[in-house]
């Protein structure tokens, strides 16, 4: 793990492209690369505010959105980002039970490769699925969420949203609360925020805290009051209802009582706190509706920023600098 680098943004001014073929995870990125994505996303956001929301940066490029898990938000966000960059896009949604059909992921990918796409955006329920593709494909692979591993563009859009509101990442207290164990959003956010110098606290029931969490450079607690005290940012993680109740904690009611983000708990945080959630939300489980809909919530800003950040990633992986795209 890299130590927090406070001068990352300055370093980024010099960088003009991501030094890699793929975006598999935040763990691989240097702070200057993260800052470059965030800076580029600012220009991309401006594109989205124009009357004609389109630039020719990826004209003639083919992007395949290969989704093995149901997703509305992430897939739509990628697709809009691709279209605003003038890429030719196609969506392939494969039922997660595709194992039954007998074709392996490697074969699916190699068949797609035979048609020469430039980029494959992959969402898959197995951690490391994009690493497998990265090894066998020439196309750029963008990880749109792999199992419980990483969801790098989510962390980048979260960071973009925080930076837009707080003007910095370094030194902020960020509390992440919820199902830590199964969350790829958590892992990407931890890597990003610790690299950028934030003070990261994670909170959840002990049954949902990953082993050896301290080695990630975060503070872990099961006392939510401690986690949110004076927090600049509170990020709630989705509790996966279908497999949680009775196994990892006794009941949703009890979960909400112990870990739910309520207005009362919000008052422990910094007065300018922002509330974030990667979606989809379970109202009344990890977050009270009053908080989700309240003045501190930036949840819909996250969604809006997702498009700009994904435009930046697509653009930078395709070669980036020298194009007039963001001009």
């Amino acid at each position, binding site marked *: 793990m890299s130590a927090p680098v406070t001068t990352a943004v300055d370093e980024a001014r010099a960088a003009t492209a991501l030094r890699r073929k793929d975006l598999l995870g935040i763990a691989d990125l240097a702070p200057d690369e993260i800052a470059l994505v965030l800076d580029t996303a600012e220009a991309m956001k401006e594109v989205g505010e124009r009357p004609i929301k389109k630039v020719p940066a990826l004209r003639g490029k083919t992007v395949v959105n290969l989704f093995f898990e149901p997703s509305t938000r992430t897939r739509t966000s990628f697709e809009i980002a691709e279209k605003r960059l003038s890429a030719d896009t196609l969506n392939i949604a494969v039922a997660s039970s595709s194992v039954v059909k007998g074709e392996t992921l490697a074969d699916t990918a190699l068949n797609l490769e035979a048609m020469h796409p430039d980029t494959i955006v992959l969402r898959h329920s197995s951690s490391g699925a994009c*690493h*497998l593709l990265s090894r066998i494909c020439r196309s750029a692979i963008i990880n749109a969420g792999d199992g419980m591993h*990483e969801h790098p563009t989510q962390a980048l859009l979260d960071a973009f949203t925080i930076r837009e509101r707080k003007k910095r990442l370094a030194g902020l207290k960020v509390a992440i609360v919820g199902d830590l164990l199964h969350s790829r959003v958590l892992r990407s956010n931890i890597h990003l925020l610790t690299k950028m110098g934030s003070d990261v606290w994670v909170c959840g029931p002990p049954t949902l805290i990953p082993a050896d969490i301290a080695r990630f450079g975060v503070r872990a607690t099961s006392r939510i009051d401690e986690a949110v005290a004076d927090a600049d940012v509170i990020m709630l993680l989705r509790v996966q209802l279908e497999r949680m109740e009775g196994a990892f904690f006794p009941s949703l009611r009890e979960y909400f009582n112990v870990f739910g983000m309520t207005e009362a708990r919000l008052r422990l945080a910094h007065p300018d706190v922002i509330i974030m959630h990667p979606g989809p939300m379970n109202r009344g489980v990890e977050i009270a509706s009053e908080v989700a809909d309240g003045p501190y919530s930036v949840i819909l800003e996250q969604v809006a920023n997702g498009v700009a950040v994904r435009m930046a990633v697509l653009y930078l992986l395709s070669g980036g600098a020298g194009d007039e795209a963001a001009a």
Partner: protein
Amino acid sequence: MKRLLKGGRVVDPVNGIDGVQDVLIDGDRIARVGRDLPADGAEIVELRPELVVCPGFIDMHVHLREPGQEHKETVATGAAAAVAGGFTAVACMPNTSPVNDNANVTAYILGKAAEAGLARVYPIGAVSRGSKGELMADIAELRQAGCVAITDDGRPVSTALLLRRAMEYAGMFGMPVIEHCEDPSLKGDAVAHEGYQAAALGLRGMPGACEALGVERGVLLSELTGSAFHVAHMSARASLRAVRKGKEAGIAVTCEVAPHHFTLTDEALAAPVAYDTNTKMNPPLREAADRDAMLAGIADGTVDVIATDHAPHHYDEKQVEFDRAPFGIIGLETAVSLSLDRLVHAGRIRLPRLVELLSVNPARILRLPGGPLAAGAPADLTVLAPELKVRVEAAAMRSRSKNTPFDGWELRGGVAATIVGGRTLYVNSAVAGLKL
């Protein structure tokens, strides 16, 4: 026909031999071991003094996949891999298809082994019919057909009651029960060791306690029944502690460790190749404290045996998502080099101890011929070249499968030759001037 191996260093810990001696082979038997033996009409084979002549190595934990999964390995290809890896004998696990839970399957395996005429093959029978954990297999019949132990390897024996009964029943023949130690509820659908690496990679983890619970159960039942209990592929430090305590209490427990568990840690899952499915096995690669405990147990005598858990899988079965890949790696052709490099050259043990781990103890536990180089014993010999520089090349291996995480590794020490029943079945062409 007689052959006299002259000038090599003979290491025979049972007879307290460690020095330059001659070994006289008469047909398929050892005739004599001693200093400056007369040729007496025998063909003389000159060995350089840096070569080490040992009683034949026995790998008591391999999967030969036949019958049923011949695309991964056959008895013949597995036996070829064994002799190329310095093993004169292997004991093969019963999780074939069909399961080796009756005399017909045992006889089939032994027939294939005789046809191959390479390493000796000792089948291990199932504890329960179909290894389903319900009804006991016909253990006496398996014994009579040639099985040397019983196990439901691949999974633990389903209940403490069945394990107890199997120990009691097999104890009648002095057959050990070999156990894949694991608490299934604690394992769940885990695919890696529970720790930082699994957390960072987003893989479901099983803690060392998952294995140690199975070890504790077996040790307690071994105490209850008085029967021999052998812990397969031990990987967790808590398991080692349980074995050590059992031994101190005089309980008939023994254990084996695989080379990958004394060499690698779970960091291999992340680098050099992230999510390399050749780092996925069960039990999983564990954290450094566990790996170091295995090394300590090997050095202090708690660990009885080095066994490979040789588990061949076809390459396209491994070229899948990590959580969907089958568990297991091949080990027959890397075990000796890893042992010499990581144990002997690293100064943790000396050669006589290595011979105990690879020959004497597996022979004792399974009650096989072999172990000491006694006059009249089968002429099964492993000749080592401890200073040989070895570069592991998966593509060149004899095994039908190539699923090893050690491809490209450079190791110090290797096998010079393998002699089974007086017949030289493997000679390493990289060892200069070796004519056997």
